[in-house]
């Protein structure tokens, strides 16, 4: 057990160095720097003299080659310093801390809803496999699965924020809250919830279609096994056979799926957060790349990589819980 964790730790650290080094190299070699982006956004009439530019390049470490810059970033990281955002003039850790909550609100709710709906849906689909109602619902789920989120988001915005404006069904077009920070606590919670409905819907419907198909496929695989015949020969009813004997065995692949969804849980979705102007992690990532904000890009890359590795570790540990044949030794 201890050797297992030690091995995973060493492997994980190596992976992190490779990923962050690769991303740092890519980011630094993208055309443009934080300075050119800022220059492009400032008033062309204002002149910045070359000495000032050179001084800023030094401050941001842009005068050094990328391997040297990466070594410095790594050195700072070992001291617990993720650096300061160039475009936002804030420590990267603080930026990330601010964005975790909103992203988690959307992704966590969506993940919970997805599993709450897709597990019964998968069970239902496999119990009624091949019948008309199952075929119809599967077709609907396929259509949903292939329907792009950004199109669905725009439709939902038109329907709920434009057509239904002024009715009880009206929902906010974008943003996370319309109320000032000093509004009553309960009113603010309600307001954020109303703003979250459309983004959560958008993020849920695609994974819902995917997960329920995944559960159904795995259940159908399990139902063909010999031990299912044994369970039926024992006198177990169809429901008990499906849930107790078959579904219990599909938990093994499901745990992998759950482990893979951990980074997305905090990472949020770039597209959905961008469309709904949701102040989350995905949008921060997208903007930091556009602004060539190297410290923020690196901070977020590190966070996603750590979460991905942790998700895999979590999945491996859950394997041992759901499958007695697996042991970490």
């Amino acid at each position: 057990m201890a050797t297992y964790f030690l091995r995973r730790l060493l492997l994980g650290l190596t992976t992190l160095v490779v990923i962050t080094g690769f991303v740092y190299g890519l980011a630094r070699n993208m055309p443009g720097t934080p300075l050119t982006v800022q220059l492009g956004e400032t008033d062309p009439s204002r002149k910045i003299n070359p000495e000032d530019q050179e001084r800023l390049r030094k401050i941001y470490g842009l005068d050094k080659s990328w391997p040297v810059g990466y070594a410095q970033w790594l050195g700072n990281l070992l001291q617990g310093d993720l650096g300061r955002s160039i475009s936002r003039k804030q420590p990267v850790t603080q930026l990330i801390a601010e964005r975790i909550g909103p992203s988690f609100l959307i992704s966590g709710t969506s993940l919970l809803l997805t599993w709450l709906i897709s597990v019964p849906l998968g069970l239902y689909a496999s119990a009624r496999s091949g019948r008309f109602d199952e075929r119809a619902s599967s077709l609907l789920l396929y259509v949903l699965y292939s329907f792009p989120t950004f199109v669905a988001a725009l439709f939902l915005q038109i329907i709920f924020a434009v057509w239904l404006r002024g009715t009880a069904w009206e929902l906010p077009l974008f943003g996370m809250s319309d109320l000032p920070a000093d509004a009553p606590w309960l009113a603010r919670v309600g307001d954020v919830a109303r703003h979250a409905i459309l983004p959560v819907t958008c993020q849920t419907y695609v994974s819902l279609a995917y997960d329920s198909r995944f559960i159904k496929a795995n259940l159908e695989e399990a139902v063909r096994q010999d031990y299912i015949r044994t369970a039926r020969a024992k006198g177990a009813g169809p429901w008990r056979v499906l849930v107790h004997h078959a579904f219990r065995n599909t938990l093994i692949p499901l745990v992998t799926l759950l482990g893979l969804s951990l980074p997305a849980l905090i990472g949020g979705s770039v597209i959905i957060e961008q469309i709904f102007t949701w102040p989350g992690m995905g949008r921060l990532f997208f903007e930091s790349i556009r602004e060539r904000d190297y410290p923020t890009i690196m901070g977020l890359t590190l966070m996603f990589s750590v979460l991905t590795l942790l998700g895999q570790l979590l999945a491996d540990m859950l394997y041992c819980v759901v499958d007695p044949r697996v042991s970490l030794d």
Partner: protein
Amino acid sequence: MIERPPHPRLSPPPRHAPLLAIKNLVTAFHTPAGRIPAVDGVSLSIERGRTLGIVGESGCGKSVTAMSVLRLVASPGRIEAGEILFSSGGTTLDLATLPEPAMRSVRGGRIGMIFQEPMTSLNPVFTVGDQIAEAVLLHRRVSREAARARALEMLQLVRLADPRQRLDEYPHQLSGGMRQRVMIAMALACDPELVIADEPTTALDVTIQAQILELLSELRARLGTAIVLITHDLGVVAETCDDVAVMYAGRVVEQAPAAELFARPRHPYTIGLLAARPSPGMKHSGPLCTIPGMVPLPQHFPAGCRFHPRCAYARLPGAESGSGRVVPLPAGELPCNAAVPPLHEVAPGHWVRCFHAESLGPPRSAQEIAAGGLFS
């Protein structure tokens, strides 16, 4: 209309109500390629407390017959006709038409089942104890503790080493023979009157096979449970069974007490099967006897007696038999490809599905056949 030769009785005798009587069972699979009648008119009976061996080659329908009894035939298979009369507790149930909820109380409760593959027949994610206890809890109103105690008792009964420790182990921690003992414990947990064992030893080592068969015989003697043993191994039948039913191409061709069948086989297929066995008393060396041809696929079952294309005794009007000989058809006898021979009794308890069972001459013993080489 084809005239049939006179036969004394056309169904097994009502000596006393048999525990299980299968009558003209038809189980067919409806595939895109057409209807495949895997079991096509099987009739056989099992007496209380006795062991019936069902033998036949792969694809003869013996497993489908067993699965039909518990109605576990997987889709697209369906029981299409026939009766499966199970006499239990003073009442007779027709398992072919019994409603599903009532059927569930029969499965595992009054009829236990043991499968061929002990490696895959136990659920990998539950402990052995839980899986046996589940069988008890499904049929008895007892507490979890009582069910667990019963599971322990069953593991002791099937003589699994360290039963107390095994109770909390998972199937992957046990060997094939141990798992088959667990399967037997599970099948017997609710004191069933009948246990169906579908090739219970085929997947095991020879030494383990003997142990499992010995255990089954011993439990039968101790608990009085009737056993249906499905096998393709005549040696297993000879050692463990009281009665034997021989199946060929979806039908029972001969049923008799084991001693009678081995001493006086009457159906040409049975005679061939017995002759194909190597025996320790064989005088000459050389190739073993074989039955010419192949088992027909259900899609291509021949008309009339299904064995006639391979039968050395087949009588066809002027045509060649399977062995190439032309046998003249005696006056008043039916050609073998004209009608399905009925299962009829040729000696007390000895049933044969052959037109010519009586005219085949004096019955020969298996030793004689093996020595003489009937089909060579």
